[in-house]
């Protein structure tokens, strides 16, 4: 991959990838590390030299998801209130409500919702990325959506 290709890829996807990782792990600083590592791996990967941008984008999300899994394997999630300072706030109106609602979900549920509804991935792709069968991840999505709606309704201003 040339330097120009890397810079173009970074400009196009770094922020969105960071948003995904931040919402998944609720830690902006750690998310930055993961994004950096994901881009470094894409840069190192020989196979990525001939791939198009869409493949590189998917590879980035795959690497970031694997890094999240590896980093937080076996760790119990810290309640949101204790780490609120590390979670960047977004828009003034619904941001806190969304943040609160997402924090009530498990990491897998947050990743599922984000990939399916923000990134527009199919259930099959989300399932493959997160290590679930399509039917199972669909169930996770339904459950997460229901839970998100409840929590979002509670915390919306």
């Amino acid at each position, binding site marked *: 991959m040339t*330097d120009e290709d*890397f*810079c173009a890829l*970074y*400009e196009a996807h*770094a*922020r*969105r990838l*960071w*948003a*995904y990782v*931040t*919402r998944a792990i609720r830690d902006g600083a750690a998310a*930055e590390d993961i*994004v*950096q*590592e994901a*881009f*470094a791996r894409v*840069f*190192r990967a020989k196979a990525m030299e001939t791939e198009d941008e869409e493949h590189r984008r998917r590879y980035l999300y795959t690497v970031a998801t694997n890094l999240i899994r590896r980093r937080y394997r076996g760790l119990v999630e810290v309640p949101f209130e204790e780490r609120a300072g590390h979670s*960047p*706030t*977004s*828009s003034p109106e*619904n*941001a806190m409500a*969304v*943040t609160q609602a997402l924090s009530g979900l498990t990491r897998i549920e947050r990743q599922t*919702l*984000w990939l399916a*509804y*923000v990134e527009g991935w199919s259930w099959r792709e989300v399932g493959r990325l997160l290590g679930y069968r399509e039917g199972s991840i669909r169930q996770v999505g339904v459950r997460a*959506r229901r839970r*998100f*709606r409840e929590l*979002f309704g509670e915390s919306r201003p």
Partner: protein
Amino acid sequence: MTDDERELRLSLKADAESLVRAADLPSAQQALWRAKVSRLRDRRSRVAHIVTYLHCAAAGLVAAVLIAFAWRNVTAAPAADHPMTVATVGITAVLAIGVLALPAFLARPSRR
């Protein structure tokens, strides 16, 4: 897509957009520099692995030559000299392996 899903998508997308705007990440040039450093480290680590394997292979080869030499001496020497010949060549083989392979083993790159 149901209304429920549509509302969820809108909420999440609005959140994503505001997060993207608020993101304070290193510039592309800084990220490129870090990626290059990371690639360099990766290459060095690979070279170190290859050097380790070459050391070990060399040690194995030396040991094999010495054992073959010992075997030839043992079969050629009078029966009374067998224990001495075997011991001498055996010790030499162990020392050769130690000198060549141990430093390489100790200096092997750590796997993270």
